[in-house]
């Protein structure tokens, strides 16, 4: 028996609303299957499961808002058919990051584990429970602001948009105000906890733009590669020489990322942003990166992102595009340790071979976590990105 928990989809997520179950009791599921849709401050996210098995019980009903870590469903072993009385088996906590599935324990397990209990009850103060009971409020659908994240009187008394089940469809997408709060919370934490250092480097883009022009010459607009894909690829490849910038700061030390998964910051219509991952960007071709970026933008703004895409990034890039500012000084998204900013490509007087020429240039910036690295290393990283933008190699 395995518990399937409400995942944390980022440092700024405290709770989510279960919007849709895509499985029912008795369904067999495989690791990686999308089993539910959860409403978060980042919109509706498809949630994957990390264990093989058979769904034995859906614990949290559609419409319920529950804190991160709440048991959403219970999963039996694949071999067992879902019986009315599921056999007792030691409960194991569902790992939130992907981990290799362990061998299933033999089904004849000691009858020591307690039977599946009632749905996890939200932390709430006695006074909040009394008021909720008097008003008929379901605490399971609330987030707490009290000590230890408990629901307290203020959470019940605060005017908040009610989210009755019927209104859920209207809220589909995201709530810009809630997302603004979530961004504020994550960025405040970042500025509070992370000693940022900042570096910048302005790069001549003549070679890169010429390469792009050749690559796009015979392509229809939807297939054309944008400069951003070159920048992402240059960052991904440069990280091989400075792996210290690719990973997480956790429990007081740096943990290298398992692969180069680049978070790509996407501005959403109506405000806010998300930064889902371009997985294994260092192994993708320029076209592959471009395709991944188009897919992410489309799904971030229209359809759905997957939970694993929000938690995977090992570093994030923000690019302001051709209507942005000349340079951006990013705030690192915890627990990542670095963030790269890409400004607008502008034409500037540039010294080339001893004389001045008009050249397209871009300012790259790096925000580094000084706990994990120093400016010396960050400078080498920016220089390596610049070098890779001078000689774009196929593919």
């Amino acid at each position, binding site marked *: 028996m395995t518990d399937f928990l409400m995942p944390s989809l980022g440092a700024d997520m405290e709770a989510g609303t279960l919007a849709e179950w895509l499985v029912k009791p008795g369904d067999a599921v495989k690791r990686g299957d999308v089993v539910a849709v959860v409403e978060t401050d980042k919109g509706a996210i498809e949630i994957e499961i990390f264990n093989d098995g058979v769904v034995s019980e859906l614990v949290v009903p559609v419409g319920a808002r529950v804190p991160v870590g709440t048991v959403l469903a219970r999963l039996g072993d694949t071999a067992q058919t879902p019986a009315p009385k599921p056999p007792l088996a030691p409960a194991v906590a569902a790992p939130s990051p992907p981990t290799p599935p362990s061998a299933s324990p033999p089904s004849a397990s000691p009858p020591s584990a307690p039977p599946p209990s009632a749905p996890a009850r939200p932390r709430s103060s*006695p*006074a909040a429970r009394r008021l909720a009971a008097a008003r008929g409020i379901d605490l399971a659908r609330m987030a707490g602001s009290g*000590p230890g994240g*408990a629901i307290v009187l203020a959470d019940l008394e605060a005017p908040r948009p009610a989210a009755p089940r019927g209104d859920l469809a209207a809220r589909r997408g995201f709530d810009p105000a809630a997302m603004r709060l979530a961004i504020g919370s994550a960025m405040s934490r970042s500025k509070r906890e992370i000693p940022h250092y900042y570096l910048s480097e302005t790069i001549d883009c003549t070679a890169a733009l010429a390469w792009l022009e050749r690559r796009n010459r015979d392509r229809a607009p939807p297939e054309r590669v944008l400069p951003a894909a070159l920048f992402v690829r240059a960052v991904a490849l440069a990280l091989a020489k400075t792996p210290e910038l690719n990973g997480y700061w956790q429990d007081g030390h740096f943990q290298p990322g398992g692969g180069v998964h680049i978070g790509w910051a996407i501005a959403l219509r109506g405000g806010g942003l998300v930064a889902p991952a371009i997985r294994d960007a260092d192994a993708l071709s320029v076209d592959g990166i471009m395709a991944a970026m188009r897919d992410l933008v489309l799904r971030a703004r229209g359809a759905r992102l997957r939970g694993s895409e929000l938690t995977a990034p090992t570093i994030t890039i923000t690019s302001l595009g051709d209507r942005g500012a000349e340079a951006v000084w990013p705030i690192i998204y915890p627990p990542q340790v670095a963030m790269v900013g890409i400004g607008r490509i502008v034409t500037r007087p540039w010294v080339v071979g001893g004389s001045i020429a008009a050249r397209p240039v871009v300012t790259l910036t790096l925000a580094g976590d000084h706990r994990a690295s120093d400016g010396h290393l960050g400078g080498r990283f920016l220089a390596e990105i610049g070098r890779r933008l001078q000689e774009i190699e196929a593919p």
Partner: protein
Amino acid sequence: MSAATSAPEPQRVTYREACKLAIRAAILADPRVVLMGEDVARYGGCYAVTKGLAAELGEDRIRDTPLSEAGFVGAGIGAALAGLRPIVEIMTVNFSLLALDQIVNSAAAIPHMSGGQFAVPLVIRMATGAGRQLAAQHSHSLEGWYAHIPGLKILAPATVEDARHMLQPAIDDPNPVLLFEHVMLYGEEGTLDPAVTGVDIVSARIRRPGSDVTLVTYGGSLFKTLEAAESLRQEGIEAEVIDLRVLRPLDMTTILGSVARTHRAVIVDEGWRSGSLSAEIAARIGEASFYDLDAPIRRVCSREVPIPYAAHLEQAALPQAPDIAATARALVKGG
């Protein structure tokens, strides 16, 4: 309207002077009242509370005793049984442990064991608490222990008004009453309102009203708690400060009424937390007001060490205003 010019002016006095005024007035008012203890007469008391009283009132009324707590507390019990209204001074609560048998097995028990035939109208005053670098044998706050004992009344005046006025009702009470004076309060100044001629020894007092969190304290911690409440006010948190005044029997009506309004409680006690008065209050709030609580009950108590001698260690061992404010803030602001 013009104020009557003949009305007595409010009087600025120290806590020490207020104690002395109380003793003097009680002795002058009633020939049965005597005070005895170590160094109270010729020396004037180890904290100078009785300085000059022996010369004024005579050594029949202000009596020096040998260094024998069990002896002179026992003498006080006997005098009370025989009709006097004695006040016994013990230098510090640590030394009162030498008289624990007299206090617990005799004074507290005799009225009950005699089926009410004998009253023990005895008052024992003693200093309590830390902060003067007197080290572990002179600095403890053991009043909570005495508050455990049925048959005793335990008082802890914190203000000059209570220091001035709690003694007389303690003397009038037919039960043994223990009165704890915190050593750091003796030098504190306050105002005696001449309109106040007496106080009760029954109720707790709300020293500062507030709506967000109840801070329950007494004695030497009252002013630290008020200081914490003031710093909380600057953050927009209104703390209600309750001065217990009476540690046994506890005025739970005032405490529970406050918690019903604020839904949060912090207990501040210079005693240790294990098996303590603060534990008792927390338990009673939990028993009676569970559904009023919007946050866990918290306590700010002394570190569980014998009080150190070194000044910085002593201060670190005691509840301080920033600790109290931080504890209350965490309850109100969450986190």
